[in-house]
């Protein structure tokens, strides 16, 4: 995204909104799959983490860099009757931690709101300038 004119703060704020939106998407995927014991590859769902990178040097927007799976261990619970249980009766559960996801959701929502606030404030600033043309 080229950033060079009077509207660059708007472009930057929008890139922030999009990035945080993606993060909220990942959090919602994690939360939905909190009990998915079979994600298709013979192992439970692995939680996803979204990483960001800047669009360029200096003043620039943000974009989603990678969506990486969390490689931490799966917690095991004893549930002998479960179809995905191993020979000892233990089932590997997804490595999603609900409180963490909720906190991440709050952080992502606040970041989204902050970008929206910047967009709105900058819009008001340009309108103030335009008032001078009256």
């Amino acid at each position, binding site marked *: 995204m080229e950033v060079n004119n009077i*509207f660059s703060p708007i*472009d930057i*704020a929008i890139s922030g*909104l*999009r990035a945080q939106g993606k993060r909220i998407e990942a959090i919602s995927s994690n939360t939905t799959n909190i009990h998915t014991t079979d994600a298709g590859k013979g192992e439970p769902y692995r939680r996803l983490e979204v990483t960001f990178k800047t669009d360029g040097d200096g003043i620039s927007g943000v974009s989603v860099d990678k969506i990486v799976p969390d490689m931490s261990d799966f917690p095991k619970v004893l549930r002998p009757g479960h179809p995905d249980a191993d020979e000892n009766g233990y089932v590997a559960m997804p490595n999603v931690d609900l409180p963490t996801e909720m906190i991440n959701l709050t952080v992502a929502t606040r970041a989204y709101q902050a970008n929206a606030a910047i967009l709105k404030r900058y819009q008001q600033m340009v*309108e103030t300038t*335009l008032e001078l043309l*009256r």
Partner: protein
Amino acid sequence: MSKTNSIIEYIEAGIKVESLRQKAIATNIANLETPGYRRLDVKFEELLARALDSPGRVELSEIEAGIYQPKQTPVKSNGNDVNLETEVGEMVKNTLRHKAYIRLLKKKYNQMELAINIK
């Protein structure tokens, strides 16, 4: 016909493009979830800048403001590449530009009125 374009002609061309772009944004938002839809954009400023580089009078009506599909944004799983945030941002920018042109036009008319009313 004068050798250069009047300010009013430029503003008129700008306002025309702004309403066309507003239509493109509205179409994009309406097709937010349409499978296979690619977002539309309006190309005008680049064409105008190129035309202004050439000497003499620029025939503004000949600069065709074209609707095109940029096909640069990432495509979602249903083949659609519209992003609501991007469209809202484009709309904010478009509205601000439109406001600036309208104010400039009003200023110009006030100036003419001033000249007419001189006794």
